[in-house]
């Protein structure tokens, strides 16, 4: 569904992405892991067209995404740090997104209800805590029932109860056959979610394996132990 071929991106002298190639298919739940500043967020932003790559190309359903914008209709994106216009209320932000996407029916408001955002609709974005902002970001990502979900550190800043709600939601969406891309540092959380792992370091993809092969290769059951096995090398 998403294919990246030899994508490179430099920020000044820093190579954020170095010849990255990967393939993601429908029904997969992929964990994108790696140390800080390994290019995970840059890769995600390149897929979304927020960062323009220097070389290489990315296709979405067979179409090159460069200068294209319609494909984003099928992506729900939850940023690492959700930043919204300060003066708008939660309700206004949600309505604006519905208005911009031109969709008012067939909405998935599960998360809005489960997070209890209905009671907070009149609150201005400026006054929200980091966790509530994350809840808004998550609700927006799932709102339009997109075929692809891209979640950048989804559970960072969420309380245990809310991250459990979010995890259950991710599992439900996975079962519907959607493609899900998650980055996270909390590997133990990803155990029961992901089917594949992409490990990045210094802008390169070190490996892209299914969770079964990873377990066989390392002889470890748990994801965090398996990854630690690789990091020690």
């Amino acid at each position, binding site marked *: 569904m998403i294919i990246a071929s030899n994508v490179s991106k430099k920020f000044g002298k820093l190579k954020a992405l170095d010849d990255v190639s990967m393939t993601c298919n429908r029904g997969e739940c992929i964990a994108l892991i790696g140390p800080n500043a390994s290019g995970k967020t840059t890769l995600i932003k390149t897929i979304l067209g927020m*960062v323009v790559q220097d070389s290489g190309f990315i296709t979405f359903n067979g179409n090159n995404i460069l200068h294209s*914008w319609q494909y*984003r209709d099928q992506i729900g994106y939850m940023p690492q740090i959700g930043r919204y216009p300060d003066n708008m209320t939660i309700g206004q932000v949600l309505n604006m997104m519905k208005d911009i996407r031109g969709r008012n029916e067939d909405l998935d408001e599960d998360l809005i209800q489960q997070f209890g955002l209905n009671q907070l609709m009149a609150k201005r974005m400026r006054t929200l805590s980091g966790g509530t902002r994350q809840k808004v970001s998550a609700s927006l990502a799932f709102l339009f029932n997109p075929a692809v979900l891209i979640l950048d550190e989804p559970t960072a800043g969420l309380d245990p109860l809310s991250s459990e709600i979010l995890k259950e939601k991710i599992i439900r969406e996975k079962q519907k056959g959607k493609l899900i891309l998650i980055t996270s540092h909390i590997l133990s959380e990803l155990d029961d979610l992901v089917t594949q792992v992409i490990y990045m370091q210094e802008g390169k993809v070190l490996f892209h394996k299914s969770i079964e092969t990873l377990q066989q290769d390392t002889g470890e059951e748990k994801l965090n132990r398996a990854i630690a096995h690789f990091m020690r090398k």
Partner: protein
Amino acid sequence: MKKIIKYVMTDILRNRIVLFYTLLLFATAFSMFSLEDNISKGLLSLLNIILIIVPLVSIIFSTIYVYNSAEFIELLVSQPLKRRSIWLSLFTGLSASLCLAFLVGAGIPVLIYQANATGFLMIAMGVILSSIFVAIAMLAAVKTRDKAKGIGASILLWLYFSLLFDGLVLFLLFQFADYPLEKPMIAITAFNPVDLGRILILLQMDVSALMGYTGAIFRDFFGTYTGLVFSFTILFTWIFVPVWLSLRKFNRKDL
């Protein structure tokens, strides 16, 4: 695109600064007209104030607004929208709001006291200058990532168009006083929309007789139909070129 313009405009019109700007223009215009016993003298004083305030407020407000909308822009870019339409909507929303503020603040008093060709030309000039400086501000804001640098660049640009340019022209005139500079002067005015606006309005007034030989040359050129078409083409180029350059930059910008 209409939807984004709507959100940008409601956001700006709720802003107290724009309201304050409207009131300031309104108060200045009324006091100028009531201070001077001669209405065209009042218009002249108003012209000088407008040529300072309108570019200043347009350029500074727009630059800060673009920087403050960074979150909003980032949010929109991740949605199924063309970057082109995001940027053009931002420009349209900003310039429409500032033009509206000018029309209400200065347009109404001018129409009350001086509803003739000169008055209309002045209103048109205010609207065009607002748009030009919004366009320049957007170019300055997209070129620099740092907010302080971007706002500094805007202030310098305003200084250049309002003061430095005139100083440079005077310097040139004195240095080359022995040569006939009247015709090249017409070309030089094209490099500053503020001066071009000032000359176009002054020529509509009787005071242009005081401008001597240069004034006569200007009248010969700008007074004609070709001259008018030329100056408005130049003014619209001043809107179009910065918008186009900033759009090109924005299309490739990493957010």
